[in-house]
Every structure is written in structure tokens, then in C-alpha cells.
């Protein structure tokens, strides 16, 4: 037990601790009710979220300018099977051998807020390997790279807007936001809808991850229903016997009226 290091990182003096970040997260939850942000409406990601230190200088201070979308913005780039090879859905077969880790299937449907499918559209994902290491030269986490895992996948959704990936469950990942900061396991998703207004990048999380309450990126959505929109459901019907665990995650794109979106779980109001 004496061999376990106290820390594999060094922090500058005054670097915030997890307790500091926890207090900031709690403070914002208390003082910023979920529907108070004029830029983002109910349950939306707060872009001015100081517990995530990198956001401080990278969010606009002015309100978003409300504008009627024009013809080009009401259309979306077209992607096709020319752009994405059908094998790119499987992140476990892109190199010669099998990657290490827990094999998973992630599937779901991409729609707009009215349930219309984002059909034949591009979904891109990227993620860390089972040890929480990204395949990128700037990455400094001393976890092993997996020679058989690149951590990148792409698909074109079908006519119903459905996508499916086969991958490895990503590991938690340490990052320098504060002392002993760990990102919960997540998969990055980049999604196109039927309009360019709906184009979105987000992250999918796994149910039951104990790091979610501690993570300032996940906590930048302050409402439980907003947070829930990012957590996949374990689905035993997707699980394949003797082969892989299944998760389902539907993605709902919202391009217009983002500013004024009102709660679906909140009390109904008559006009």
C-alpha cells in the first residue's frame, strides 16, 4: 500500500480543490434557477459557468441576437455513403486486433423536437479508451494507449434517424480543471439535423457514474431533466448474449426557439 503515490499530478499553489468546485456548483444551482437564463431558456447548458475554468474567457457576454433563420440555415449539409464507409460504426475492428475493455453497443434515434427523424445524416463520435486515454499527442494522462483502439467512429443515420455504434466503454479521465478532477466516462457526439440551426456537439454519459455530480462540464446543465438528456439508458434488449452490453441514447435536436423553450415537465400554463 505504501507504493501507491499520493498524487501523479502537481498543482500550482491556490489551485482549486474538488471541495471548492463542489461549493461553486452548489452555489450556482441555488442562485440560478433552471429557467432564469435569458440566453438559453430552461434546462439549457449554461455557457457562463466558472466552475469549468476554461469557460470564463470563452463565452459571449451579450445576449444572443434573435433572428429569423434564412433559407441556407433551414437546410443542412448532405452526407452520404460516399462520405462514410459502412464499417466506421464499429470502433473495435478498425485496427488488426481486438481492443481491451468492455464491449458496448450504443444505439438510438436522432430527431427534432417534434419527433421528425434526422434521416441520412452524419453522426461522428470520439472517445477515450478503456483506460481513460485519448489517442492524441497533447494528451498527458499516464494511462496506456491501446494499439487496437483509435476511439473514433462515424455513421450515416437510416431513414428513421437511427444510428448504432459498437465500441469499448471509455474509462474516466483526469483533467487539470482542479485538484483531483476526473471527467465521468463519456462519448463525444457530433450530430447534424434537418436544418443547420440544429447542428449540435454534445457528450453522452453512462448511467450510475459517480463522477457526474462532481463534474463541472456535466453540471453546466443545472436541471435534473436537462442532465438526464445526456445519460444513456442501459437496455437489455440491445445487449447481445455473450458479446456486448447495450445502451440506448436518443438525441433530440432543437434549432429554433432555443431561447424560449419551456419545460415539458413543468406546470402547464394557459395562454
Amino acid at each position, binding site marked *: 500500500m505504501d507504493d501507491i503515490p499520493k498524487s501523479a499530478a502537481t498543482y500550482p499553489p491556490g489551485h482549486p480543490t474538488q471541495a471548492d468546485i463542489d461549493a461553486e456548483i452548489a452555489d450556482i444551482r441555488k442562485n440560478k434557477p433552471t429557467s432564469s437564463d435569458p440566453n438559453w431558456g430552461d434546462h*439549457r*447548458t449554461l*455557457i457562463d*459557468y466558472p466552475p*469549468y475554468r*476554461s*469557460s*470564463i*474567457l*470563452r*463565452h*459571449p457576454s*451579450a445576449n*444572443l*441576437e*434573435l*433572428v*429569423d*433563420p*434564412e*433559407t*441556407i*440555415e433551414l437546410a*443542412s*449539409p*448532405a*452526407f452520404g455513403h*460516399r*462520405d*462514410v464507409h459502412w464499417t466506421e460504426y464499429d470502433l473495435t475492428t478498425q485496427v488488426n486486433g481486438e481492443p481491451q475493455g468492455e464491449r458496448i453497443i450504443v444505439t438510438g434515434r436522432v*430527431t*427534432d*423536437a417534434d*419527433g421528425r427523424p434526422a434521416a441520412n445524416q452524419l453522426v*461522428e*463520435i*470520439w472517445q477515450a479508451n478503456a483506460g481513460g486515454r485519448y*489517442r*492524441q499527442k*497533447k494528451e498527458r494522462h499516464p494511462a496506456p494507449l491501446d494499439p487496437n483502439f483509435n476511439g473514433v*467512429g462515424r455513421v450515416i443515420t437510416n431513414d428513421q434517424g437511427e444510428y448504432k455504434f459498437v465500441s469499448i466503454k471509455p474509462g474516466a479521465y483526469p483533467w487539470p480543471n482542479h485538484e483531483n478532477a476526473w471527467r465521468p466516462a463519456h462519448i*463525444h457526439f457530433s450530430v447534424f439535423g434537418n436544418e*443547420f440551426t440544429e*447542428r449540435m*456537439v*454534445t*457528450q453522452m454519459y453512462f448511467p450510475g457514474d459517480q463522477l457526474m455530480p462532481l463534474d463541472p*462540464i456535466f453540471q*453546466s446543465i443545472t436541471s435534473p431533466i*436537462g*442532465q438526464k438528456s*445526456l445519460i444513456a439508458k442501459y437496455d437489455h434488449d440491445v445487449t447481445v448474449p455473450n458479446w456486448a452490453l447495450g445502451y440506448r441514447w*436518443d438525441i433530440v*435536436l*432543437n434549432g429554433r426557439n*432555443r431561447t424560449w423553450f*419551456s419545460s*415539458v415537465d413543468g406546470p*402547464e400554463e394557459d*395562454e
Partner: protein
Amino acid sequence: MSTAKASAPKLFPTADQTVGPYYAIGMAFDGSEEIVPAGSAGSIVLSGYVYDGNGDPVPDAVVEIWQTDAEGHVPAVSGSIVRKADSFSGFGRSGSDEEGHYEFTTVLPAPTEPGKPAFFAVIVFARGLLARLHTRIYVPGPELENSEFLGRLTPERRATLIATEVPGGLRHDIHLQGEKETVFLAFN
């Protein structure tokens, strides 16, 4: 009785999250910045820098543009990842470099309706930016005066949406925050 009750229930939208520091793993591909081949007839370079609230370059931003062809038609063809020489897909993606620089080779967009000003539809993602930002880059010209939207902005704010003509194309910087903060959009 509200109209919301009469129509089908809306689905709860999925929230945005930051693109993070390693977006290049999943989003970079060869030719993403060349909507048309460099040096081809009619091609221009659209380029600029992305800055943070201190005026420092943002080296890990992603700028995406979506535009009409040179005749004002909205493209509806694949080929944004695997480019085709004989068709125009209208979509490009540029990850900023260590100096915050982004760059596209493309053609000038044209108005989709006569008399309207032409623009590039733009989305910005970055590490540290928790949700996407929509904006526009307008092509300079007399049609800008016809825009009701541009007309209601202060001259300083309006200027953040209009590109500057430079030899070979257009220059346009994006300021995520600060005195020169770019106008970002929400759609009706």
C-alpha cells in the same frame, strides 16, 4: 387553451456540451477546409482568427461554414468528407491552429433570394465553450443595406458580422468575448 396543448407534445431537447480538447480525433478529416480545390477557378480564401475575452488566440476552436454555391443554390449533394471535383457540397470545417487561425478555400456564396445579402452560415465550437455558437459572415456589398436584421444592430455590433475584402478573398475574425465580441445568434 394553449396552442402547445393542441399540438403534439414536444420532445425534450438534448443539451449541448463542449467539443473538448480532443475534437480532432473525431472531427478532423483531410480536405475539410477545401470546399473547392485551392487555386481552382472562382475560388477564394475565407480566413481569420478566433480570440477569447483577453484577446488571446483560441488554438482549439472548430469553425464550420455552410453556404450556397456561387449562383445562390442551396447544395444538396454528398461529398463534404470525401470531396468530389465536379460538385459543390457547401460545407467546410476548420480547426484553429496554435495562433487561433482558421481558413477555408471556397467560392463566394450568393443570395438565395434576389436583393438579400449573401452570407456564410457559421457555427463555432471550442474547448471551454459549453454550447455551440451560431453566427454569420456576410459578404461585403451594397445588399447589406437591405437587411432588416443588420439594420437594427449598432454599427459596432454590425461590423462583427461583415467580412473584410483582402487580396484573394475575405478576412473575418471571431471574438468569443470582450470589446469586439462577435454577434452570436438564436433563431426564431
